[in-house]
């Protein structure tokens, strides 16, 4: 457990940390990528990025910014899994990956149960747009609407809910109107979305639909977000720097830009010349296709395209050690206690050790 290697050869953790510090300090522009870690790991990594004047990014940024860009453009209306579970009289599921993304979703939201906080005691109405294969099976009566273009479908649905005309086949129109009717008659409806199929344009359209529905009734959203504590890392980055991930300290203060500080782009373009890859939740390997000096804090059994110069096997928050992380189950940062406590070091431990070799700094 918790092995460390330099160029593939086993070494002590201390030696690995020292060598990692050396490699990172020699970089012209280091980037911390992956960032699959708990709040303490994210915090330590962002402190390190500041010290190195590097940039940092998360492995799931594409999904993070699908939602976050909509929020920053137009806003959002959202609720929690608890409220959805206890109150929603209508669920509008969108996308084919929901249960793949969050296997416990149906158990958690229990759509087949009557919502105890609803004033009317009756089964929920369940709608699913673009369920794909299997998504909508076995959970009460689900009305489905197939879609090959989610943005177009959501635009049409929004138009019909607002009583505007749309140009489409009769059968589709009937279905759209049926859906629109259910949404407008919801008492507290919840739209659940996630997965790779939804881009910012579609989410913004959905947000528009939710805002429209709230003119007369209550409706909110439940974005499933991304894994590897993406939301927790974004929150930590938010309070530490004011910005989410894809932020750089190159000029001595945090600057945020989703294009400029995309880790993979920086590496492949040559702007970043050294990487620290962090993945504590699973054996994810760096996605870039360029062999640059690499320090990896990774789950055991990670398969790398190139052996990292330094690799430290780290524990998983909530399994090997306690950690604060964003839980999809609650929609908030919670304490996750170790289920199988082990000696494997945490990301925060290792990053702090690396950081100690980079000279005296103010205690943070």
């Amino acid at each position, binding site marked *: 457990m918790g092995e460390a290697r330099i160029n593939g050869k086993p070494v002590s953790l201390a030696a690995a940390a020292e060598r990692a510090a050396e490699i990172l300090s020699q970089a012209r522009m280091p980037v911390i990528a992956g960032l699959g870690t708990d*709040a*303490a790991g994210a915090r330590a990594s962002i402190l390190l990025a500041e010290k190195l004047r590097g940039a940092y990014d998360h492995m799931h940024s594409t999904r993070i910014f699908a939602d976050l860009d909509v*929020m920053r453009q137009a*806003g959002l209306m959202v609720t929690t899994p608890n409220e959805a579970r206890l109150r929603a009289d209508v669920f509008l599921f969108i996308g084919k990956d929901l249960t793949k993304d969050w296997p416990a979703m149906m158990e958690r939201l229990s759509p087949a149960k009557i919502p105890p906080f609803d004033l009317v005691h009756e089964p929920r109405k369940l709608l699913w747009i673009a369920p794909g294969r299997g998504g909508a099976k076995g959970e009460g009566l689900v009305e489905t609407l197939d879609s090959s273009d989610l943005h177009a479908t959501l635009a049409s649905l929004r138009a019909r809910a607002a009583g505007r005309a749309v140009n489409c086949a009769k059968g589709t129109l009937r279905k759209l109107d049926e859906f629109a009717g259910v949404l407008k008659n919801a008492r507290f409806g919840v739209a659940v979305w996630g997965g790779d199929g939804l881009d910012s344009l579609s989410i913004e359209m959905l947000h528009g639909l939710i805002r429209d529905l709230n003119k007369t009734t209550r409706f909110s959203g439940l974005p499933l977000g991304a894994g590897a504590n993406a939301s927790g890392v974004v929150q930590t980055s938010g309070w530490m720097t004011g910005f989410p991930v894809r932020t750089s300290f190159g000029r001595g203060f945090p600057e945020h830009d989703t294009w400029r500080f995309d880790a993979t782009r920086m590496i492949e373009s040559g702007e970043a010349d050294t990487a620290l890859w962090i993945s504590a939740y699973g054996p994810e390997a760096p996605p870039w296709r360029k062999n640059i000096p690499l320090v990896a804090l990774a789950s055991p059994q990670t398969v790398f395209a190139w052996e990292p110069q330094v690799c430290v096997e780290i524990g998983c928050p909530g399994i090997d050690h306690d950690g604060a992380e964003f839980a999809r189950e*609650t929609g908030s940062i919670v304490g996750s206690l170790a289920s199988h406590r082990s000696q494997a070091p945490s990301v925060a431990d290792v990053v702090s050790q690396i950081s100690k070799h980079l000279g005296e*700094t103010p*205690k943070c």
Partner: protein
Amino acid sequence: MLIHLKGGHIVDPVNGRDETGDLWIENDRIVAAPPGKLADEVHDVSGKTVMAGAIDIHSHIAGGNVNCARLLLPEKHQNWLPNPVALPFSTAKWSTFETGTIYASMGFTTVIEPAIVPHQALQAHLELSDIPIIDKGMLTVLGNDDFLLSLLRDGEGPAAVADYVASAVAASNGLGVKCINAGGATAFKYNARTFSLDDVVPFYDLTSRQIVEALQRAVEDLKIPHPLHLHANNLGIPGNVATALATIEAARGERLHFAHLQFYSYGAEGGHGFSSAAAELAAAVNAAPNVTIDVGQVMFRQTVTVSADVLRQFNGSEMASPKKSVIHDGDGDGGGIVPYFYRENDFANAVQWACGLELFMLIDDPWRIFFTTDHPNGAPFTTYPEIFALIMSRDARAEATARLPQEAVAMTTLPSIAREYNLNEIAIMTRAAPAKLLGLKDRGHLGEGGLADIAVYSPGKDLAKMFRFAHLVFKDGDLVVRDGRGTHYRWGNALKVNPGYDKAIDRRLAGYYDHHFGNSRDLFTVKEHLLPRADAFREVACAR
């Protein structure tokens, strides 16, 4: 370490000092002049003003809603200044690090985040942990949570309510209890669009008034030093002074802290249907010695409103500037983040600005009025120095008032007010009284044995400058600010209470969480070892 502050103007209302004199610090405490001992460090502070460190009782500096506001508005806090090496992140605008550094540089040494729901408490404490230099604390928000409303609906009585409140405060490590538009967030989930003191929360058959009374009583029964901190109904609505007056009345002579009163001081007179009723409201506060208030002063600039009053924020989101907002139907209370620009030439904004100043000027007792902007709702806390100037100088007010639409000024009594706060009153309002209100016996004064939280200012004609750049600031006896600039970080505590209660309620809550939410209540408990530093907390005794 023995430090001698020599020959300053000591302003310490608790000990009746308003005179030239000395102050001695040994380690983290203020001590009597030690006969025959030489100080390790002497600061000649002749001509300077020496006060205890200031305490802000209501400033939204942490938690999910505040952080959401940061993420919502990246374009409003672009950076340009590298930080000093000793103060990492301190120039990162709106970061926790900047928050602590700026507060300290203004002479503030304790700041309370007033609105954290139990399910967001861990994140809030993680954020508070990253606010350097100052001590912090947070109030636990209750009053829209199903467990409480169900207890009340089922008539379970004050003991059960007190046990639950105590358990929620303990699990979230709060310093007190806040209630935000009691029942309003829940009513909004049932599609209510307005909600007042005697409106009934659907599903629970309870009025807002009943919820407030129950929480007020629980706080008293638990001997929590800080009285119930209330964000009342109908915030920001023309004519809402009626609600404010009724709410003061509803306190029935019991202790109540009425938050950001400015936002409730509106009449509906005049051509715009919007006027100041601050004078009438101030009179009601003066006549109710059980009530304390903080102002929630508005200042003219871009800001963002961050509030768990989700009903109000939803209604206000039409006015968002820039045009985007986040509305969050949370567990119990939720939140709304709505950016807003207060404009000097806007009739309503001008009336709001004047209302706040009228409250400052017309509420007589500086022990019962607290200095806030409801940061960032009325204005960012960085405007405090300008507000000190406005309340200490009639001329400064006249000058600022002259720039406003005069039809707005005519709807207020501001031009007729001559009062000017003196330093002693400032020290009461921002030091002595907040310490008393929160039960913090170790601060807010300069007496022997007190914490050496000390702010030294350079008085001058420019009052705003005096309060923006403290000459020296000591936190726990450590010199952390020189000439308005932080010198280094130290890490303060989060202050909390730990009221005693019958632990049977915890077992009941565990069952409730398992059954209702389908997850463990323990997930939400703030455990000290999950925070970045040991000794994160300092307990404040529950006794009155």
